[in-house]
């Protein structure tokens, strides 16, 4: 550990430009695919493979440097700030979708039912005079364009179970952290295994819920504003949980290999922060998407 008397500056690295190129390739592939070109799929998968390779390589280099003792306390603080502000940016990304949900429920649906504008709402009067807002069982204003769903996922079924799973995983990851701070490696690994399992079980239930919604309830992204907000919010959240669970699995692997010390384990903490963030977003989802 160095004091602030001498600064640490990392050597040049090939990973940032590889990261850029792999993101660029993925996006080109995605765009070509969306435009109906099948070759886009191949380009996208090459790009995503490169993204995975980049993450592996970049983090491998950082871990090697960290183990070699190159990083000072100051570098550690920079990493902490970086992760913290990255999570805030993620919060704001979800805020856009929550904003869409609140707007739809508070403004666009009531207006489509004729509220506002002094009782003379043109969209309601001239386009869909029969439309009346309801939530979550909304009739679609123009059923020729979107598919009417028959039912929605009730809050106190799988979602409540998932809430319990995710909240418990927040507890187990903290227990793992305490074990690490007490240098109890066995307990650390045990609680991490539990956390990773809880994470993947959550994802499994979510996948089951999606299949059920598609097959039994006709609830798809095509299901008007309810289907749109439901899948956008739970989809991006599920993606983040998957990422978080993979990150936790990496931390577990590193713990088994004997990485991290009592005091020096920022990677563990960063992933734990991320996991708690995913947890909090889920609470928002459970309350506003499933429950009320």
């Amino acid at each position: 550990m160095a004091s602030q008397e001498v600064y640490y500056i990392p050597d040049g690295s090939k990973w940032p430009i590889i990261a850029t190129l792999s993101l660029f390739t993925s996006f080109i592939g995605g765009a070509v695919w969306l435009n109906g070109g099948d070759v886009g799929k191949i380009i996208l998968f090459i790009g995503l493979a490169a993204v995975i390779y980049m993450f592996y390589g970049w983090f491998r280099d950082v871990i090697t440097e960290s183990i070699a003792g190159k990083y000072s306390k100051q570098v550690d603080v920079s990493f902490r700030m970086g992760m913290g502000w990255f999570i805030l940016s993620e919060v704001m990304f979800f805020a856009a979708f929550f904003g869409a949900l609140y707007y739809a429920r508070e403004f666009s649906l009531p207006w489509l039912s004729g509220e506002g504008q002094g009782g003379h709402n043109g969209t309601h009067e001239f386009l869909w005079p029969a439309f009346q807002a309801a939530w979550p069982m909304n009739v679609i204003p123009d059923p020729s364009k979107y598919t009417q769903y028959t039912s929605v996922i009730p809050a106190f079924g799988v979602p409540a179970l998932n809430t319990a799973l995710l909240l418990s995983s927040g507890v187990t990851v903290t227990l793992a952290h305490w074990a690490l701070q007490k240098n109890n490696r066995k307990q650390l690994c045990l609680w991490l295994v539990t956390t990773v399992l809880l994470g993947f079980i959550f994802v499994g239930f979510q996948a089951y819920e999606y299949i059920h919604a598609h097959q039994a309830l006709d609830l798809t992204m095509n299901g008007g504003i309810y289907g749109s907000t439901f899948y956008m919010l739970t989809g991006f959240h599920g993606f983040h949980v998957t990422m978080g669970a993979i990150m936790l699995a990496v931390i577990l692997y590193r713990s088994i290999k004997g990485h991290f010390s009592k005091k020096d384990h920022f990677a563990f903490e960063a992933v734990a922060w991320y996991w708690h963030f995913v947890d909090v977003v889920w609470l928002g989802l459970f309350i506003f998407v499933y429950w009320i």
Partner: protein
Amino acid sequence: MGTIAKDTHHDHEHKPTGLKRWFFSTNHKDIGTLYLIFALTMFFVGGAMAMVIRAELFQPGLQFVDPQFYNSMVTIHALVMIFGAVMPAGVGLANWMIPLMIGAPDMALPRMNNMSFWILPFAFALLLSTIFMQGGGPAGGWTMYPPLVLQTGDAFPFLIFAVHLLGISSIMGAINIIATVFNMRAPEMSLMQMPLFVWTWVITSFLLIASIPVLAGAVTMLLTDKYFATSFFSAAGGGDPVLFQHIFWFFGHPEVYILALPAFGIVSSIIPTFSRKPLFGYASMVYATASIAILSFFVWAHHMFTVGLPIKGELFFMYATMLIAVPTGVKVFNWMATMWKGSMTFETPMLFAVGFVILFTIGGFSGLMLGITPVDFQYHDTYFVVAHFHYVLLTGAVFALMAAVYYWLPKWTGHMYDERLGKIHFWLSTITANILFFPQHFLGLAGMPRRIPDYNIQFADFNMMSSIGGFAYGVTQLLFVYIVIKCALGGKKAKAVSWEGAKGLEWTVPSPAPFHTFETPPKIKKGMLENG
């Protein structure tokens, strides 16, 4: 500690060469240079599109391009200028100057810094390639309002993904700046001793982190509306096209200050130097900047007064908008008070800075006019709006960026630029920019709509005047390139303190600044900083 000292030493001896130096760079000065060169290139790419627009508007009727292509020029000109020219120029300056100003050896996260830059050329490759695609480039305006933007052809996903990439770059850049300022600052420098340029960039970074992800969310919803049958912005499914405008402008208004705040910081550095007086009201400048930033999240709907908002909404957003005039006024008065009774000289950076204060204020006043709801009903979507935001962004942000380049060129290159040519550049720019944009106020007040390639014959004279100003302004900027290249190649040797009244840590290192600076934190002596 031994290893670290050796490592730093090692770096010092071997400055990387060739392609590796630029592609693998972890050096804030090299990355800053890359940003600045990229921004200047994009300034000319976007400028060329502006020339197409002004050529088409030179006379009434359709002369050179078809309306679809005209609209794609309007759209891409805006995206290129905002995300390719002004923002990267600001980040480039931040890269070069923030570590020098706060006595840090580099940015806090140098590798991420490299990635932030290199994303930009690739993002613009995606965006600019759309011009050659089936259905042409995006032509629904840079604001990408649905349902119009959903009619874009093959260009559509490229537009969306380009915006995503630009967002990733901006967020990483912002995180880096915050970590640098709060973690790498010389231990002896307190927050309230930081140069205002550093303060404005910290606050801008907060704006970026809070607003750019919202834009990413908005364009993601556009993408799913078009390809995956969601109905966020479709009333037929229970959504609302106006919802997009709310989300977009929740990003869009802070974005305006992302472009403007670094300009405020630049001017606040330059005016004290050439007035040979400390900045008047330093603390009030910091608080005013923060107030503007916070207020910018509560004024977004003033861009949407005519879409049919409830009357309470119109009133709230009108009054909130008016409030921003208070901290902005604090800033303008502080700059004037700094100059008051100073022993002023007018080298090129100062000329651009004073030009900024005057011309930006014109843009600010027309902004106030637009912020008044009933008045905006008349002005909305007219050339008055175009005139307003070009005063704010061109004679505002771009003038400040030009001032910054002239101010710090000696530090970067080790040479003084050609002062006579610099002054010619300033006067030609100022005169031509006003010929270009001032008549547009009259056009807008008389009712000429924006984003239309043809116009009524009554608007012919002012449009011709505006176009002549536009071409002249464009040509004038070639002079700027010549001055910069000439300065990079040679010229009078610059002293470490390149300007007589200049204060701050960046002037304590030699000119040109060596590849590595402040490998150990500097000691701050009395009188070394602008304040304290």
